[in-house]
């Protein structure tokens, strides 16, 4: 692929607001997960962003009011991102800047509340319910085009937990085809009953804080999170200090099962192979792998098989979901930005919560963070429907 430059990016999860807070927590080893009990005695841990409860959208955006859109707006206000977008508009023109985002549940938390507010089954939804601006998957795209004041091509992707990794592909294609010169990618996903009870129904929610690659791992902790990145075909004259390159991108489908990964990690391996091939790189060229590692029994084992098959047992890897929880559709952008932080700080994050590595897993899995040269990182995101995506990031020379 033609490399793209990630010139600016920003992130919000339960670890904190912005790049510095995120890196501080990752390097100190503190989790953002907290215990939370849901009606029906569903006790779990979640990666919650408390600020969302008290941060309504500006009144001019009242139609978009829902937790997911709040998170998108809050995240945009961090790390000088809006200034960077203003500069991007100057350099490329608003109509040459695309917006390719992702979410799995959009504003469905708001729809859950609307259904509960009905007095009887069969009643209409409350009069203040706004479908297009909250529930529909594209509500995020509509809001972001407005907030960013850009008018290039746009779409919102939704492919479960691989979603926001895949938005880099949507952007790369549209840039390479000439429809835009730069794009804002990423997305937002927020806590809602649909995913908490949905994953619980599949027996995939841990009653404690999730423990990726642990011998006693017993499921995921769901988190909320958002991240946005500016990607450009040609970088500005002076590259910003934190800029990284997207060198490789690979997607695959499992062709196996709707909610269980292929046990040998066949689709996972294919996505990683395709990412390396599109970058023209070999497995040995990768310094660190941010794995998908959600802490389910089957998922971690399948990914480990694919990792060992492709990289052997020496490439350092870790899952950061013990810190952030599984941010579902946002996992791709959250972990791409963590990969960029790893390159920026020459630091490979360890794992929160994992105590004893599963001896059946053979990758070189980092329990504690390690300093060392990090030039290239591979980041994995896999989701329901057997949807897989891997990215390779590189420090610009």
């Amino acid at each position, binding site marked *: 692929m033609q490399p793209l430059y990630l010139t600016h990016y920003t992130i919000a999860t339960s670890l904190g607001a912005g790049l510095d807070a995120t890196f501080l927590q990752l390097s100190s080893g503190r989790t953002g997960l907290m215990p939370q009990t849901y*009606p*029906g005695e569903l006790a779990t841990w979640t990666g919650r962003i408390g600020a969302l409860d008290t941060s309504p959208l500006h009144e001019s955006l009242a139609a978009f009011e829902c937790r997911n859109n709040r998170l998108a707006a809050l995240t945009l206000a961090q790390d000088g991102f809006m200034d960077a977008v203003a500069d991007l508009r100057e350099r490329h023109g608003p109509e040459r800047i695309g917006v390719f985002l992702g979410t*799995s549940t959009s504003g*469905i938390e708001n*729809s*859950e509340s609307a*259904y*509960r507010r*009905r007095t009887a*089954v069969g*009643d*209409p*939804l409350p009069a203040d*319910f*706004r*479908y*297009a601006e909250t*529930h529909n*998957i*594209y509500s995020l*795209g509509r809001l972001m085009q407005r907030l960013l004041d850009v*008018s290039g*091509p*746009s*779409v*919102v*992707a*939704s*492919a*479960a937990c691989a979603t926001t990794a*895949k938005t880099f*592909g*949507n952007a790369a*294609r*549209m840039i*390479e*085809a000439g*429809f835009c010169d730069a794009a804002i990618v990423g997305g937002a996903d927020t806590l809602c*009953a*649909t995913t908490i*009870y*949905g*994953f619980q*129904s*599949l027996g995939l929610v841990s009653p404690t804080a999730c423990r990726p690659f642990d011998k006693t791992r017993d499921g995921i902790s769901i988190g909320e999170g958002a991240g946005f990145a500016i990607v450009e075909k040609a970088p500005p004259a002076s590259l910003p200090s934190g800029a990284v390159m997207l060198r490789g991108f690979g*997607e*695959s*489908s*499992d*062709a196996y099962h*709707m*909610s269980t990964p292929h046990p040998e990690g*066949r689709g996972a391996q*294919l996505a990683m192979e*395709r990412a390396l091939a599109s970058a023209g790189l070999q497995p040995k060229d990768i310094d660190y792998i941010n794995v998908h590692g959600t802490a389910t029994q089957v998922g971690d084992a399948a990914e480990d098989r694919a990792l060992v098959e492709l990289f052997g047992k020496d490439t350092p890897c870790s899952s950061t979901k013990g810190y952030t929880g599984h941010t579902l559709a946002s996992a791709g952008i959250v972990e791409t930005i963590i990969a960029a932080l790893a390159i920026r700080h020459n630091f490979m994050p360890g794992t929160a919560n994992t105590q004893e590595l599963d001896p059946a897993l053979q990758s070189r899995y980092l329990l504690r963070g390690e300093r060392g040269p990090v030039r290239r990182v591979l980041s994995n995101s896999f*989701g*329901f*429907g*057997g*949807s897989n995506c891997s990215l390779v990031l590189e420090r610009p020379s």
Partner: protein
Amino acid sequence: MIRVYVEGIGLQGDGLDGWEASAAILAGREDYCAAPVNIPPITLLPANERRRMVKTVKLALAVGMQAFAQSGRDPKETATVFTSSGGDGETIHDILESLAAPQIDVSPTRFHNSVHNAPSGYWSIATGSSAPTSSLSMHDNSFAAGLLDAAAQAVVEKQPVGLIAYDLPYPEPLNAVRKIGSAFGVGLVIAPAPSDRAMASVTLAIEARNDAPTSMIAPPLEAIRRGNPAARSLPLLEAIARGIDSRIVLDYLADRSVTMAIAPCLATASP
């Protein structure tokens, strides 16, 4: 501006049952007669997977299979783009009802069917495809956005791509806040280069919004087009069926349209 070639079409809508029958209606050779949307059974999946399939999945797979069958391309090797305004409304409604009930009980099958990429997941299982796949939404303009993504992918990767657009009406109370007319699904196989199987070339551009979207002349077909985001594809299908050079405008962004210049390919154009 990019150019792609349509090699296969699948189609199910109100009174539109497959491409062959529909092409005759769209070309004006046969009269349109309203008829309930036929969703042909999918035989490629094992019985337990078939049982779990919701209507959106059945419709998406049916039109996709038709398009691939006509094109002769192997779905196993071909990337796909699925696009829909909002996924499976019945499943989402059932989950929202369950979550509002005093005793919360969400079905695991409903949950995995609720993801927007459920049709893409079933497609991969049914065809054995490990190819890349996207699942997209742009509300009313989901077809235009999906077509751009699929065409860009075909041109950049120099490979054929399957595009599948579908939307079904929602149950109440969602229907009252999001009206979708009769079910509609369309599958297109598009390729970056001309070939014997190419039916028409489509040259795509994003332009300032100077024109209203192209409408259908026949009132019942225009009602279908307006009623369902996936049916915004009808003017393109009509142009291909008629086999004449056409210019089509699709709504896209507030101030921008997607425009298509459509030209029949000589090998298969009927006089």
